[in-house]
């Protein structure tokens, strides 16, 4: 068991959000089962009011979650000094089997709750709240994700041993790791070609408004970016060919650039997915969401490329 001020604060806020969700679950369940817009009953009138409460809680929860995310990453980085062998969050995340699951869950929760909020805003524009059922099915999914996340968080933090030696990022992602290999048997140059090609695809599908392909390409872009950033671009940020790590980017030594890089990347994919879901479920056009997505994806690729170019201009060679 590991213990620190930040951890206590973090678990407290996560617990508070979970508690709010449990409070609102009964309301949501009633809306899901009893909703009938055409009914003039008192119950229907109450349900409409309760819908406001559930939206309020979700707004609050999502805002807190988004603010909490950088704090969480900082917490992982600060815990690394307590674990033998860990140099950054990579070691802390790999300290037990729950770390990776927790990170993925966090991203998924932000995706789902963000989509919910956009859907909610669209729903409120209509007179008869036509999308309320899909909204509450999404809420149900979110509820179970949040509860699951709480459990995983509990298991994760209580099962970190301060005695066992964990791996550092060079051992996990480095040259002699052998653990993670690149997908499809590609080498890093192949990944880079694919990475830039996917961005071109994103750009073209945005201009041509092929939204489905755009979303699919965005998911591919997210996966490719993970590999490109970890195995290629990060070495230029660290200016060290052997240092390959997606987590050290968040540290002060590298000007907290990780928050911008990962933020823009995850934001870009989120807007594309939310755009597709919202346009399928409602009659509204979601072009502006795809525009946001493209802007964020472009920021990501520009910042990454700039690091390489700046390094080349400074030193006259590539790593």
């Amino acid at each position, binding site marked *: 068991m590991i213990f620190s001020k930040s951890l206590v604060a973090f678990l407290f806020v996560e617990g508070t959000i979970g508690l709010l969700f449990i409070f609102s679950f009964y309301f949501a369940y009633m809306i899901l089962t009893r909703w009938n817009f055409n009914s003039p009953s008192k119950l229907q009138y109450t349900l409409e009011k309760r819908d*406001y409460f559930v939206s309020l809680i979700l707004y609050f929860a999502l805002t807190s979650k988004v603010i909490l995310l950088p704090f969480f990453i900082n917490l992982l980085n600060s815990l690394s000094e307590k674990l033998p062998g860990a140099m950054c969050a990579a070691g802390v995340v790999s300290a037990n089997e729950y770390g990776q699951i927790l990170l993925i869950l966090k991203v998924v929760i932000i995706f789902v709750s963000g989509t919910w909020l956009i859907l909610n805003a669209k729903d409120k524009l209509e007179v008869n709240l036509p999308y309320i059922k899909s909204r509450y099915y999404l809420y149900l999914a979110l509820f179970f994700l949040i509860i699951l996340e709480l459990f995983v968080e509990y298991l994760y933090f209580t099962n970190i041993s301060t005695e066992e030696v964990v791996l550092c990022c060079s051992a996990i992602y480095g040259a002699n790791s052998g653990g993670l290999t690149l997908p499809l048997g590609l080498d890093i140059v192949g990944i880079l070609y694919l990475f830039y090609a996917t961005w071109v695809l994103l750009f073209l599908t945005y201009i041509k408004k092929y939204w489905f392909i755009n979303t699919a390409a965005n998911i591919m872009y997210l996966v490719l970016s993970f590999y490109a950033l970890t195995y290629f671009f990060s070495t230029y940020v660290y200016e060290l060919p052997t240092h390959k790590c997606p987590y050290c980017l968040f540290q002060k030594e590298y000007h907290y650039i990780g928050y911008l890089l990962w933020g823009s990347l995850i934001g870009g994919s989120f807007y594309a997915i939310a755009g597709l879901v919202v346009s399928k479920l409602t009659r509204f056009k979601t072009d502006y969401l795809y525009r946001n997505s493209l802007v964020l994806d472009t920021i990501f690729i520009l910042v990454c490329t700039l690091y390489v170019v700046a390094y080349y201009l400074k030193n006259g060679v590539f790593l």
Partner: protein
Amino acid sequence: MNFFKFASLTLIRNLSKNIVIFIFFTLFIFIASSFIFTSSSLQNSLDAELKGQPDIIIQHKKASRNHPIDNSIVDEINEIPGVEKAYERVFGYYFFDTANRYINVIGIDFLDEDQEKQIKHLYENFDLKVFMQKDNMLISSAVKKLFEQYYYDKFFNFIVEDEEPKKVYISGVFDKRVNLFLNDAVIMDIAIAKDILGYEENEASEIGIVVPNKLEIDNIVQKLLVITPTSKIITKNNMYKYSHELYDYKGGIFLSLFITSFLGFLVIFYSQASSISGPGKKQIGILRAIGWSINDIIKWKMSEAMIVSFVSFLSGILLSYFYIFLFKNNIFVSIFLGSDNVYKDISLEPFFDINSFAILFFITIVPYLASTLHPAWKSSIADPTEAVK
């Protein structure tokens, strides 16, 4: 933005009701932030202190207690490639019987340039030649106060085993800024310190090793294990880790207790926000009647809660900042440093990091706002026609 303006106006209108919440919330934030400021400032000072320490320390233990270490291995350690310098360190507590207090005696080899440098910044106009002419020592202001109480204002007589009392003259009092970790310390030449602490000529408290290249530390530790297999070897990283663990542990325990009590208080905030008076209901009814939607009322109520929490947050933090860093010997320091050994004469180094700020935000503002969500909604859905009747 309009909601914030309206909310601030309505808050001022019901000043007497809101001022109670404001005061209590400020008090809560004051206590929490005082504690967090103290712990992070102490930790920061300790980190700075550790920076000047040697990279590796060798101690000799018997039955897991500190035991004098034979200083003859110093020459052998100096032979290890990568070691810039190894030197003996002498320190320990001298029990001042009459006053029933412990004094931290630190021996320094003034002929060693590096060690002398460390002392120089403690004391302005330090003249080594004058200092070394007779048995002299430098003392902290807290120790000075203690000595003066027993009329030792020029010298102090240390009682030494099997010998005459050792008379050591007070040559100066060192700078107030560094008093945190040297609060109960007296600094003197290493030979006198050995005499007072009862060490033989060839004994020392521990051996410090300076290693300029940090990458070589692990390797050198392996070689040291060959030279002294039974000794305890501590690296600087271990010291950092241990000190951080200690402060995080104490801070974490306090935070857990704080959260428990704060949860109880949230119930009061909740019920306070839920109870809306007759005029309050009428106000909401009128606003609804003139066209405000349920969402507008919720926004207005949440803006009120945000204003109250942010203003309390800022004033609580400012108050504690002034209290912690401007007032000497505040009660929060005693919680961390404990024992009332010698007179405390401690003022903390002002230190503020974004992480402490974030922790404070998360444990106070977020739960407070969460407790006002339900009341805000509850008041907004009241039937407007009923309310204005």
